[in-house]
């Protein structure tokens, strides 16, 4: 009981404390008299439609005009006040005291609201209880019930007022939650006593309703009412935050001038100003035509220096990167990455490093995050492509090279595959270079630089027929390919010198963002490249000198025959290589397994699918090689069946293959035409659509063929 009284006493003190500058409640100007907080007793905000002048603070008249001083004091209904006092409901008691004061300026609250000599009206108490529990419908019911049983009874007007206000409050909040802004404004203006500092949430909702219905100045007025009248620091800050989200910059800045400052000079809206500076920087980072003020930049730099979070440093990194200041960007990204090693900072740091040609570090920083999203994969591949293209050539560690190769193959990234070609060429590995150029062309058939690299390589290897084939394919599309091997040729740097100009043309170190121009890549397939790129991986490249197709493997030791077989594969003599592998198969263990693998590859390359299948079983192989071979064999079978117009068989082979390896685009195209030839147009359309989705022209061509077939059927 004592504690409850103490609570009450403090509540009354609270409600009657005189804040500095309170101007609405001051009995007879007597400094010693009770005053209420400016917060609750100020005239409420007016939500009415009449627009105020922007300069005039929007302060409406009190809901009930104060009676002139010479008039007798009206009867003040204190039943609610006394009820809340008895309940120990200090918050409501405080609000009620303030409310009655706003209504009756000459009224003073009772010294002890608990000392009520009157007998208690229990039925009325019950209604107040329902009201205080927020059971508004039941309070209405109880009033009506009593009126039915006691027709003379009149509910206290205070009770009815308070019920109406509470109902209005709920209605306003419900309408606000459903974006019924006209209702919000209507209910607000019909219930001015809702729009006070004790109901800041309601004021926010009214402000939002104005802002969302193109009445920004009225929204500004509501926020300004809070900022000029209400004192709760958290509510003031939240008000400014809301205003910053909903108001135009000029209205927002007007409200920022209402900021209050602490003794230490710290402004209460600092968090808002921080966020505005961050927003300005982010906007400027995304759009070069938007500028951030020096003040904003300085503010975020200070925050980045102070804060435990790395996000401000990242924001600065991106801002400077967008302003072509790689050095500053690198500094901030590095700081962010050191504070918190994660993908966004790594991506930005890698880009900044690429900008200043630090490709090795860029590749290293980007690698762990390459799988997080497409952007990060492309940044990694750009770093890798640039690293490969560095001049003079830097020999990469085998593990670095291996991981680059893995990513390039998985991502089917043509620019980086092409760079692997130039890289191999620079080290005189022409067969490997040729295979990488072919692989790049497989990823992107329109990559002229790769075709140029392939042409140079075939010239180098004396593969006249192959060179002619490239020239034929690019006839009319590339002058420099047409002149390869002729006196008019561009000066192609001879191996093992740094790569041919074609390489530098496509991915120059100074233009690291090759990924930005790269076409959308399909989702990375798991196993895509079969024999060729594996054999072609520079890390596995064997010496290309010292073997000849005329060497007879018979009589050679198995290991020597194995070496000869790989060598013959390198110079694209598969039939001779198959014979060499055959000799090597006589051995046991690893040599035999390698030989079986090699022989299968050789037969595959020679187009002898069935022989390849037989060879694959000649010695046990590990599951990876076995799956790889099976996939190749089935692909060849599908192709063969298709060529013999046995479309159902082709589909069977493709289905089998699809169970062990992801379907390549070219095989999907084959599948599409097989369906089309079987008049399964819906299936064909689905397949071509998914091919077209990767940006492949073959997909579009296939879709056109489907349409043709459907039109001809009509």
């Amino acid at each position, binding site marked *: 009981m004592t504690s409850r009284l103490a609570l009450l006493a403090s509540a009354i003190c609270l409600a009657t404390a005189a804040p500095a500058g309170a101007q609405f409640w001051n009995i007879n100007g007597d400094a010693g008299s009770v005053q209420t907080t400016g917060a609750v007793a100020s005239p409420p905000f007016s939500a009415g439609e009449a627009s105020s002048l922007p300069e005039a603070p929007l302060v409406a008249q009190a809901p009930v005009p104060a009676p002139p001083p010479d008039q007798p004091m009206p009867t003040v209904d204190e039943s609610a006040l006394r009820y809340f006092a008895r309940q120990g409901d200090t918050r409501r008691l405080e609000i009620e005291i303030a409310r009655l004061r706003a209504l009756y300026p000459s009224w003073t609250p009772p010294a002890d609201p608990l000392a009520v000599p009157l007998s208690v009206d229990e039925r009325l108490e019950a209604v107040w209880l329902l009201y205080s529990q927020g*059971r*508004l*419908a*039941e309070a*209405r*019911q*109880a*009033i*009506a*019930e009593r*009126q*039915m049983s006691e027709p003379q009874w009149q509910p206290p007007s205070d009770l009815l007022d308070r019920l109406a206000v509470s*109902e209005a409050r*709920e*209605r306003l909040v*419900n*309408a606000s*939650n*459903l974006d*019924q*802004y*006209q*209702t919000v404004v209507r209910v607000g203006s019909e219930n001015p006593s809702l729009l006070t500092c004790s109901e800041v949430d309601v004021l926010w909702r009214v402000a939002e309703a104005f802002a969302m219905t193109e009445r920004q100045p009225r929204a500004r007025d509501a926020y300004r009412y809070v900022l000029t009248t209400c004192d709760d620091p958290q509510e003031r800050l939240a008000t400014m935050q809301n205003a910053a989200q909903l108001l135009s910059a000029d209205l927002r800045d007007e409200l920022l001038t209402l900021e209050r400052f602490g003794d230490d000079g710290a402004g209460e809206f600092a968090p808002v100003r921080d966020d505005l500076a961050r927003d300005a920087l982010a906007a400027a980072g995304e759009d070069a035509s938007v500028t951030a003020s020096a003040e904003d930049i300085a503010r975020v730099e200070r925050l980045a220096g102070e804060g435990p979070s790395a996000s401000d440093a990242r924001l600065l990194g991106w801002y400077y990167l967008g302003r072509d200041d790689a050095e500053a960007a690198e500094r901030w990204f590095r700081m962010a990455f050191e504070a918190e090693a994660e993908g966004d900072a790594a991506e930005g740091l890698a880009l900044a490093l690429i900008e200043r040609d630090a490709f090795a570090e860029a590749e290293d920083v980007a690698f762990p995050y390459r799988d997080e999203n497409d952007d990060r994969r492309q940044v990694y591949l750009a770093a890798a492509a640039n690293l490969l293209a560095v001049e003079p050539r830097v020999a990469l560690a085998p593990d670095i090279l291996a991981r680059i190769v893995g990513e390039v193959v998985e991502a089917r990234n043509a620019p980086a595959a092409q760079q692997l070609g130039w890289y191999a060429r620079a080290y005189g590995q022409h067969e490997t270079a040729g295979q990488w150029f072919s692989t790049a062309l497989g990823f992107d058939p329109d990559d002229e630089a790769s075709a140029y690299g392939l042409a140079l390589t075939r010239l180098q290897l004396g593969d006249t027929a192959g060179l002619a084939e490239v020239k034929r394919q690019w006839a009319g599309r590339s002058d420099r390919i047409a002149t390869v091997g002729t006196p008019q040729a561009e000066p192609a740097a001879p191996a093992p010198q740094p790569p041919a100009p074609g390489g530098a043309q496509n991915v120059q170190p100074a233009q690291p963002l090759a990924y930005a121009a790269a076409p959308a890549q399909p989702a990375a397939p798991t196993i895509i490249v079969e024999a060729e790129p594996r054999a072609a991986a520079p890390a596995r490249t064997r010496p290309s000198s010292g073997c000849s197709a005329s060497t007879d493997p018979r009589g050679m030791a198995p290991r020597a025959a194995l070496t000869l077989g790989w060598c013959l594969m390198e110079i694209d003599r598969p039939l001779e290589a198959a014979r060499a592998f055959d000799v090597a198969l006589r051995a046991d263990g690893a040599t035999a397994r390698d030989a079986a693998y090699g022989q299968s590859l050789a037969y595959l390359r020679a187009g002898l699918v069935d022989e390849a299948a037989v060879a694959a079983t000649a010695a046990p192989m590990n599951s990876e090689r076995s799956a790889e071979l099976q996939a190749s064999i089935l692909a060849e079978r599908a192709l063969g069946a298709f060529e013999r117009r046995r479309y159902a068989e082709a589909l069977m082979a493709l289905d089998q293959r699809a169970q062990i390896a992801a379907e390549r685009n070219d095989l999907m195209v084959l599948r599409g035409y097989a369906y089309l030839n079987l008049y399964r147009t819906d299936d064909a359309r689905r397949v071509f659509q998914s091919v077209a989705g990767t940006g492949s022209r073959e997909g579009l061509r296939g879709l056109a063929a489907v349409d043709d077939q459907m039109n001809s059927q009509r």
Partner: protein
Amino acid sequence: MKRIAFAALMLVLAAGAAMSQETAPITEAEWELYSDRFVTEEGRVLDDANDDISHSEGQGYGMLLARIAGARDDFERIWSFTRRELLLRDDGLAAWKWEADQTPHVTDVNNASDGDILIAYALATAGQTWGDERLTASAATLAEAIGRHLVYEHEGRVMLRPGVAGFSGEEREDGPVVNPSYWVFEAFASFEALAPETDWQALAQGGLELVSSARFSDRQLPPDWLSIGSVFAPAQGFEAEFGYNALRIPLYLMRAGMGGAGLIDEMRRGMVDEDANLTLVDLATGTTKTALSDAGYRIIPAMAACVVDDAPIEPELLTFAPTVYYPSTLHLLALAHLRQQHAECLP
């Protein structure tokens, strides 16, 4: 002729209101059975056949029944909820759907015109019966919104949109589409003084013409949803049926004293089966889809037979026992009408 009928209806309503003090047409016991079952403490009317959701129609029925029963306390409770939780739309109409386990509770902010009309009607008659200006003012505001947003003229007829959005000729190929059962005929007279800008009498007349002429199959029944575009036809996208919506039409006509004996009797014969059940009818074939045996449904054709032919009503239909929300509501509306207007049908 029609004008006279309309004026007579207003007299009837006034008389009904006057007598309600002595012998309420819905007894205290009946109302308690209903409200205990279907009205929550916070004044929400439950549609217990639809996962206990609430809607503007249910709130309107609840307010109307409470008014007829003279339960002003319960009326206040239901109205307080309705106003705070549904009467939220910018255009002044009620959001139609409310679900307890969703946030916000209103899960469809569209209106349903029958709900709006029932709420406004209950408010208007309650304000008049109890002399409560507050209720009358709310009735006027809502009636004005109904007149402004839902009543329109189409090819010389005054019509009612089922909802503000989605039913016009612009929005639907077969539009305009109407729901004839949304004409709560008895309500319109009470709107005349409250919202005089709208020609409520013409609206009632337009609805009567619809239910007289837009009847289909050899059962000659009106559909739940009707296209009034080029010709009258069951609306596309809805079952072409005399269903749970349309079965209220004869009840509304009888309560309003409209339609005449011929129309009421034709509808009765179309909807009733040999076991005196009310049937839902496929209007493409004229076949019965479902026979409804709940007393709240059976009493509709039974009341029609008594009103038209003085046929006695089976006694068990005259005792109210709540089943589920919708037929129980219709049952009380029918009983109230019999007690107010057709004492000859009662034992």
